[in-house]
């Protein structure tokens, strides 16, 4: 019957579409990818609470001193200008010896008495500087011949020979101050460069910069190795930031500046730095507020939309 067919067809069609419909839920079943959050490129807005939780601290761009330093290794040497090798003026027999190794002597103090071979007079040999006996080649009854009877060294100052490598040579100038640290001396020493060797060492391509170091405590023992920091320059700069504020983003050096709408990443050019603070050459004005501690959190906040876990 027509009517039947007319009824049947749409019904069968309906069944067909319906079954398709629910089987297509099988096929279409798919993970909804999370809705990408639109993020205003450039600004990071944080509430006070978020700032507190992130441990972000702020600081103002101001002026400051940049102390550029150069770490080097060195060795302590005796001050060659303060070494006296004492010998007898007239050859003779040593009649008395007053000092032994390690004794402190004052300038003018008697070291030995010698009976001259020719005059048979006994004369005294005196120290010409204040120092310590480091060598003694004199015993009673010996001939003085030509040998040095005593070596007196003054350790109140020592030399520090710093090894300079080719890259650093040009940076180091006479008169630059140097801070010297050693494992055996808790207080660092300070001195300044008074000599830069004109010759190089072909073995390790280094040359020497010399510092005169006060050694009143006698804790700087010649022969010891030390670490030193040459202060290359200490200059005032008008825009100085703390180095921990700096982050690298896509090859650019940036810091986060607090603006009206939140924190804004700002590309800057850095000048001199001493590790703790850095001079900003461009991109920042004095007086602006920037993020110091936990600036990484902001970098992470900025880039988190792209963070993914790929396999």
């Amino acid at each position, binding site marked *: 019957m027509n*009517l039947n067919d007319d*009824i*049947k067809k749409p*019904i*069968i069609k*309906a*069944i*067909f579409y*319906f*079954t*398709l419909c*629910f*089987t*297509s*839920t*099988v*096929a279409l*079943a*798919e*993970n*909804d*990818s*999370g809705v990408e959050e639109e993020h205003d490129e450039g600004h*990071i807005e944080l*509430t006070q*609470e*978020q700032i507190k*939780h*992130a441990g972000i601290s702020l600081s103002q761009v101001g002026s400051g001193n940049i102390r550029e330093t150069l*770490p*080097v*290794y060195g060795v302590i040497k005796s001050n060659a200008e303060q070494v006296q090798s004492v010998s007898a003026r007239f050859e003779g027999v040593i009649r008395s010896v007053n000092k032994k190794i390690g004794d402190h002597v004052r300038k003018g103090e008697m070291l030995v008495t010698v009976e001259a071979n020719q005059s048979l007079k006994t004369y005294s040999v005196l120290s010409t500087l204040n120092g310590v006996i480091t060598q003694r080649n004199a015993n009673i009854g010996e001939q003085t011949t030509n040998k040095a009877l005593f070596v007196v060294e003054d350790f109140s100052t020592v030399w520090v020979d710093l090894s300079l*490598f*080719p*890259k650093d040579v040009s940076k180091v100038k006479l008169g630059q101050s140097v801070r010297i640290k050693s*494992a055996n001396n808790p207080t660092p020493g300070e001195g300044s460069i008074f000599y830069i060797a004109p010759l190089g060492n072909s*073995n*390790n*391509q*280094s040359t020497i910069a010399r510092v005169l170091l006060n050694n009143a405590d006698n804790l700087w023992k010649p022969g010891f*190795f*030390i670490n030193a920091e040459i202060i290359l320059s200490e200059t005032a700069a008008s825009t100085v930031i703390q180095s921990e504020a700096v982050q*690298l983003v*896509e090859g650019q050096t940036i810091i986060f500046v607090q603006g009206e709408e939140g924190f804004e990443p700002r590309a800057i050019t850095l000048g001199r730095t001493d*590790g703790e603070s850095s001079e900003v050459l461009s991109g920042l004005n004095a007086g602006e507020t920037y993020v110091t501690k936990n600036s*990484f*959190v*902001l*970098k*992470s*906040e*900025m*880039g*988190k939309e*792209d*963070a*993914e*876990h*790929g*396999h």
Partner: protein
Amino acid sequence: MIDKLIKLSIARRWLVMFFVLVVGALGIWNYQKLPIDAVPDITNVQVQINTGAPGYSPLEVEQRITYLVELAITGLPYVESTRSLSRYALSQVTVVFEKGTDIYFARNLINERLQQAKSDMPSGIEPVMGPVATGLGEIFHYAVHADENALQPNGEKYDATALRTLQDWVIRPQLRLVSGVTEINTIGGFEKEFHITPDPSRLLMYDLSFDDLVEAIEKNNANVGAGYIEKNGEQYLIRAPGQVADIAAIQQVIVAHKDGIPITIADVADVGFGKQLRTGAATRDGEETVLGTAVMLLGGNSRSVSEAVSAKLVEINKTLPKGITAEPVYNRTVLVDKTIATVQKNLLEGAVLVVVVLLVMLGNVRAALLTAMVIPLSMLMLMTGMVQTKVSANLMSLGALDFGLIVDGAVIIVENCILRLAGRQHHLGRILNLDERFQTVFSATREVFTPSLISVLVVILVNLPILALTGVEGKMFTPMAMAVIIALLSALVLSLTFVPAAVALLLSGHIEEKDNMIVRQSKRAYTPILAWVLKFRLGVLTGAILFIIAVGALTTKMGTEFIPNLDEGDIAIQALRIPGTSLTQSLDMQFKLERAVLEIPEVKTYFSRVGTAEVASDPMGPNISDGYVMLKNRADWPNPDKSKAQLLDELQQKLALIPGNAFEISQPIQLRFNELISGVRSDLGIKIYGDDLDQLLTSGTEIAAVLNGIEGAEGVKVEQVSGLPILSVEANRPALYRYGLNVADVQDVLAAATGGEEAGLVFEGDRRFTIVVRVAEKIRNDLRALERLPIPLPQGGYVPLNEVATLTLAPGPNQISRENGKRRLVVSANVRGRDLGGFVADVQAQIEQQVTLPPGYWLEYGGTFEQLQSATERLSLLVPVTLVMIFALLMMTFGSAKDAALVFSGVPLALTGGVIALWLRDIPLSITAGVGFITLCGVSVLTGVMMVSAFRDRLKQGDDINTSIQQGAILRLRPILMVALVAALGFLPMALNTSTGAEVQRPLATVVIGGIISSTLLTLLVLPGLYLMAYRKPKSMTENDEDQLAS
């Protein structure tokens, strides 16, 4: 044959009962063995090859390890694909085998090849295969925790290193032995190491190098066996112990002899316990912790394994030092038990309701109970079937079971038997003798057997397209379809054998066949309505069709989802930070997150894995953390009625407080699943293969730009491959010439200084700890100090590192992905509001036009669109075939296309009720809802066949069409109402339950309840009218008849 079977069952009823008992017992036994998990496992047959390469950057890992591993496994049989990942210190190659490959065979093949590859790798690098486990293998997590005042034997507090040592040497070796556990994976804490941290300036003083230190330790840290001597008839073994035992012993090792003075390690270096360079860490409630994970062997029973692990852990805890506990923080059993409890509760309550319905409707206790027996029996048979066919039991496969349909067959058979037995008794006016009874039972069974057979066959047919699904979808839903089919077949067999046998056995005495109040009332109400609908059949029909169209339109507006999310009870939070985030920074941010989340009173504990664990089954960078938020029992919540959504809201608010993190909130198992199927889960993935990483990225960006310009593209993403900050120390060759140095001299010093060099082991009883020579953290982390690192010169003296090498900081590759032996970059996109096929074709054309790849680079198009296409193709073939088969089935039954079409016409209206029920409850369309619709097809065909065959019987007996319809409809009112009530009430607990796992079953139950109502209405109201229209002879249908009908 069926006749014979029924006759045999009735004749040998005791035997049948015995068999049923045996089958039941078998089912119980199999139930014990059945591996039950919460969700189906979607992992493919794969083997992971992990190679740890401490200190290696991604590029070096790829060059020196990954490539070799890939080369070794090329050409293995049954390999479907390989992919690899090279990250800092880790190479992971995943080999995917064809479906059905034996995993142990595959591992053997790989093992053989790896042996060869190993010889080409840098010394000390050892590729190992990942555990024999699936993505669902992580069944148990525990955290090792120390009390505030717990002290180590040496009087110090337990720190992360001490806890890790306990985990590595006390807890882990014991847990590893638990049967079913393949691996105990550890993350967190520090492996104890003895660190010799030389001071570069002190080394200079004595003109020593790092190598001298390593050599000194190696020469002074060995035991030697020296054979034996015989003395006075006895044999003395000789040994010369020389191992260092502690820090003091290491300090005294002589490094050199200068001017008669021995120089010991203590002179040039500090010796102490140090921290390894970790790739991952674990946190809990804002503190570092040590986290152990029990990984279950492939094919294990997660419930029994995690129970065993849990029991073992209790034992181990007794042996741990005072104040130390290994506390379970995640136990899969909890979830599985909860879901099983939910399923059981639903089934039990449903069964009780079914019995009540049967009692009320049949008015016979024995009949009601024997019908209800079919439910547990077919469930037990299902258990046996599932064990035999290795179908996994889980919330999806068990939860989708629909026992309404299971008992339907039995219900109509029992109902008809009672009807006939009572009729016969009434007719004969006495209690039937045995033969008569059997005869009646047989004929009654036979009479209504066809409809129940048809309905079962229809459901099986409708399930077939599901079985044809492949991939993840297939793994998810095949077990479910299989379970439904097995259960129905079991029920069918039972209703052929057990039901007639039991009826013959039990319904012996006087059978009262009388309609009770409800049935009587229904019949009384139904008669006039039937007359009315028959009179206005055209209007009713039009109304029905309009209704179907309206509902069809409604479906397009409804949301869809893959499967309803199983509420696992706990929450997983994946926190992502930008690549390059250091572990320390990442931990710091994680601590803050955890402290913030802990402020929510419902949270019990929050633990996380940051970075990669010891066994790198999930290689995450240190910038990513997988966190698990475990909730308290609802009873302990301040407001036990708080909804999960509300809690998630609060959680998100807390998380938002901590800037710098991106989050993905899911659930523990879900998270693992998403990881397993990630990467290829986008609709379209364009893979670019080539050599140069920069070129790949350039081309990738170009392609992404093209994609973004194409209509329908959404979420276009270029795989994140770069962005890891790298400090390159590049040797300056001219400078090296001047100093007479080799590149390796510089590299070795750098590697030893920052990466560290292993110098041997310290043994403490069974435990062994590495001795590492490495410069102090202070120097390692200070770029300026590194620049000055002294490099010893062959002729004596030293030169600072920056004299002979350039140090540059620049972002480098974060990870290098390869697929099938070639470097690869993926650009992925999803499609919205457009057909996928057209989109892909458009993309291909546009890319061809606009993007030129350099020679040696090529593209491949992949992603779910492939699966979707193949699934759509398969379904568009299978669905019509299925429909035709159903139709053919009905035609075979009735021998009439008209009747078949009439029954068939019931299906759409049956479905409308389901859709409306879903819509009313605001539940989106999903696969489980789809299963409900499948069930509905069966129910509606069942009732339709019953109705139509009743009409036909009457017609055959010679009644005229109107009487046939009226009488037939009234006769079938009771069984139809019963079937409907059984199915609807049986599902009621499932639809209303709110406990764990209920959300997966809720759509199914909702659909069935809603659909049953509409289906019943249709069968009772529309079908008679349709039948009348189909069979009305124009002549016999006079005005008079109509009036007669109306009266």
